[in-house]
């Protein structure tokens, strides 16, 4: 039986407006791309179940408004994140330049316990477009300097590399969660409450 531990992974997607955060999230969760998505106001999230090493976990992917002026709202949403996904647009150099500030801002607001080891993943989106302004090499260099952050080149439009990227994100988030000490699983042993263990008994009969 799978463990009862918390298997919810909270993932935050950050990056400049219009780099494709909403599109990536929807491509991953709903396998759809639409150019009718509206600019995100406030925040929204989607959830998706993934299986990692035989463990089913639920990813809760948060998408927030990309304009920096709205960042002050972040604190309500960033808390408790297990992984942060940074996104830039490979055809727009400015979106690459702001990655540093997105990362810093996240670390300040989410205040993770070990900022140095907090998992980030970088996505260079819109690789279906030409011409590129930021090469893969340059992005990788940046990642190397940032604790070897994993880097993926994606296209939300074509669905390119999106699945792989989010799988890596889930893995990193899970690793992060397993590392942090689980404070919430103790209960004083003075008293036995209702029986919480499950019986497997009837499970077999429905195998069809």
């Amino acid at each position, binding site marked *: 039986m*799978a463990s*009862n531990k*918390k*298997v*919810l992974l909270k993932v935050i997607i950050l990056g400049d*407006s*219009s780099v494709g955060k909403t599109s990536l999230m929807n491509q991953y969760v709903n396998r759809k791309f639409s*150019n*009718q*998505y*509206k*600019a995100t*106001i*406030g*925040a*929204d*999230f989607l*959830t998706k179940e993934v299986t990692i090493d035989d463990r*089913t976990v*639920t990813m*809760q992917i948060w998408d927030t*408004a*990309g*304009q920096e*002026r*709205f960042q*002050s*709202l972040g604190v*309500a949403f960033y808390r408790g994140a297990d992984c942060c996904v940074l996104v830039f647009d490979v*055809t*727009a*150099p400015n979106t690459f330049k702001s990655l540093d500030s997105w990362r810093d801002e996240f670390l300040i607001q989410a205040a993770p316990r070990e900022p140095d080891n907090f998992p980030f993943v970088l996505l260079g989106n819109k690789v279906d*477009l*030409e*011409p*590129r*302004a*930021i*090469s893969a*090499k*340059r992005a990788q260099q940046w990642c190397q300097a940032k604790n070897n952050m994993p880097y993926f080149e994606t296209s939300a439009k074509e669905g390119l590399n999106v699945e792989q990227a989010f799988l890596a994100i889930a893995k990193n988030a899970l690793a992060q969660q397993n590392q942090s000490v689980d404070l*919430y*699983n103790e*209960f*004083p042993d*003075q*008293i036995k*409450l*209702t*029986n*919480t263990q*499950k*019986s497997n*008994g*009837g*499970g*077999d*009969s*429905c195998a*069809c």
Partner: protein
Amino acid sequence: MISVFSLGGFNISMSGDEKDYKEKLIVAVKKEVKQVMEESVTRKFVHEESGSVTSLCGAVENCLSQGLRRRALGLFKTSSTTALLHKVAKHCSEANRISKKVQEIENSDPNRRSSSSSDSVSKPTLKKNLSFPSSPLPRFLWIRLALFDKQLAKIIDYLVSNASKYYDKDALVADPDYGSILSSLLVGPCALDYSRTKSVEQFWTDPPADELVKMHRISSGHSTPPSVRRPILNFGRSLNTSSDDPLLSRNNSQHIAKDYVESLHQNSRAALLFGKNNVLVMPAKDDVTEPMPGYLSLHQTPSGLTIKWTPNQLMNGFTEESQDKSIYWDYALQVRLDEIVYVHCHQDSEAGGTIILVGQDGVQRPPIHFPKGGHMLAFLSCLETGLLPRGRLDPPLWSQRAGANSTTKRRRPLPALSETEEATKDYVFRIIDNSDHKDIFKRKDLMNVKASLPTKVRVQLCSTSTSSESSSKSFSIDQQSVPDSPPSVYIQAVCDSMKKQIISRAFYGWLAYCRHLSTVRTHLSGLVNGKIINGDGASEGITVEKWAELCTDGVVTDYAEVYRYTYFGGIANELRTQIWPYLLGHYKFGSTEEQRKALDEETKQAYENTMSEWLAVEAIVRQRDKEDQAHAIAKLSSESTSGDHAPNELHRDLSNEVFEDVITDDEDSESDHDTPNRKNKKTRENTIRYESEEEVDKGETNKDCDQQQNNVQRNDTGALNSSKILSVEEEEEATCNNNCDNLEPDPREELHDFIHNVIVTNASVDISNIETEGHVRNHLDAVTEENNSSLDTCIETHGLASPARSACVSPASSNGGIYTQELLKTFGLNLHRIEKDVQRCDRNYWYFANENLDKLRNVMCTYVWEHLDIGYMQGMCDLVAPLLVTFDDESLTYACFCHLMERMIENFPNGNAMDCHFANMRSLIQILDAEMYEQMHAHGDYTHFYFCYRWFLLDFKRELVYPDVFTTWEIIWAAQHVASSHFVLFLALALLETYRDIILSNGMDFTDIIKFFNEMAERHDAVAVLKLSRELVLQLQLLIENK
């Protein structure tokens, strides 16, 4: 998912494929069982209201219905199998038990009786029948209860073994195979634990908003009324409900009991600091004669510490005999520590220790007696730790005693409390709140105080009501705290204390009540207008006829009526273009038609002027973008060693997707050369001179450019002087290519060519339109740039309206303007943002599907150009859009948008209106719907109301469909003159109240509510919500009026 199981028709006799049909029924059960079992594997509990449970129950119901001998059993009146259960109850103890439970629940409210016996009832909507105060009963009630009670398999087993009595011969249940399969299938689900408590582990399995609403409609014949129907100052209710105390509302006691016990566990919302069983408490009830053992626990929640004590009878599981335990709930104890001032401890080495908690009101809580073994000390120690950092015990439990060696400080408890020392000791601790400002007497501003005032009120009234029972006992303990005093002093002290208690109780009760009322008046009175204006006859809104009445000879004088009609009924769509400018303050009431015409004209001129200013700047920005991009590309290609970027692919302009007709030139060049020279030159400049004279021939000659390297020049006058130029250009385009071909193949030159072959497209103002119609029309003319211009003289043609020829000469555009780098940078940044958002603005709405985006962009850019200090912020496009759709006129839209923004700008990140809205929401909900507030508070405390952010930022524009946005907006605008200038708050409140039952019954937390409302966007019943909002305003007005 649920509607699949329509119950009608299953007992109609079946033809040849009966076998198949039974097979199908069984397969359905299998599938649902599997689903439920899977759900249980991944998380700790299956939620009782999980969709899969409902589906499973439905599938079972179908099996049980099939071939049921209704007629013979006298069950033909009902379509469900509930009656069968009651029949079987006589012979089967499990069924009897469930049958009783069903009856209990049904009888607990007369309104409910019908709903479980006819499961198929699905009364229309949640908005109707507001007057029936009952929460919905779930479908398939008895099957559910039997499942949760783990009796379902047994009952079905009984049915199968006695099938001949109740079923036709060919019924599924009577079938030797299917019958036993059915009962064995259910063994598994009957072994699971079901829960109503929401924990972090569960929330993502919640059904989507859709399903919630559907479920709600199906399951409830009637909905719980939103607070409208409830008296606001309902102290009767308050007395019974304490903040996070689920004990007292007793319907559905089974669920609640279980929830309650689960709440004693460590969970995500409350940390368990201490837990001990067999702690004795003497409940303050007449029918209890001696102390009872129970489980004592200390919980820490964000709002503070809570001590709970639960009788053992309630702790030992819920699956046992059906003995009625309900009385024990009365004994259970729950004390919030912030109500407690003193902790009296009585230590007895023989018998353990006793603690008595004394509240602010002087009332003592029932004594808590710990068994021997240092448990009291452990408890106090946990308590002390839990109080930090906000509060502390005085004197401290653990004293820092300096030993002989002053450097080694040793922590040790006060001597009185260690059991090893001699016999009997008493001690009194005071709980000190370090945040002194919390003093309730000084507290004036409700908004700044986290603890809710109504909660306090309730708490104090609560204690008032119970104090008479507990006070007599408590004095005996007071005695012990002054053991050395002579008896007279001692009795005197008791009397004093008694007097004080009585006075203070009365005082606190009275004070609380007054404070509550004055809070309502002083704080909330600002939210609504004092004068109540009724809506008599106005519910139709402004119709064409009404408008003809109001607007006599083109003059509207009775503005009060315009506002009143709009507020109560909205405006007919065809009149909006005329009336909105009044509502927004653009047209003045009392103005004549001529005056308004003149104003329109003036507005248009001003708009065009402003536009020509920024269009000029835009052209420069575009040019720079191209250079930047080319630069980046050059850098990239020099960087990349592989040749995977074919030169041909480099030709697309990405910067602007609004204007899709990007023309690329086949002419190509290598782009792997950096351009350090150019870069240096460019960065040297601080300003770019904008020259418009002498440019006409620039396009053709490209050799004299070197001398103007520091200038960016544009031949816009050329373009503007006559449309002739435009046609000349077309020829040029053809010849240009030749020219380019003729250029010497200097690699650097080639790069330049490449750069300039990228073509800028501009939204342009057609001159002829201006001249003929006097009206700005925009086209997405792709105007090609001069192909053979040299790098540093960026000569660009754009179809800017000719200021020189029109009446309004803008100095900037006619004489050439000088723009600082900073201005260019700022505007450029804004421009890009605007374009990105225009691209994504309501593309699914016909108006913006293909056309009109440029109009939106122009209005937006004009606003931002005029308000560069504010700049573009996300959401502004959303606010322009409905205006533009209504007016379909840029300049009028612009003028009205400016008026609209006077109020709306405060909602954006730099203003403070959003925080005010949130604070006001807090107060309103606390006072108008305390129950909802408590739920929000209890489920992770989302009383920050961030989930309303988009609602307020955009005046609900994203929440509603366009026609409803129109109505809602005009009502908001009119509301300030009729009822409330904070009408948006009441809209928000109405939205919450509309889904009140769903929010409460699903115990939604922050993420749930965000998800729910995001999914419900554009699906609300706006008419109902608006009506409710107006009612809520009136409710508050009446409350304030009835002093």
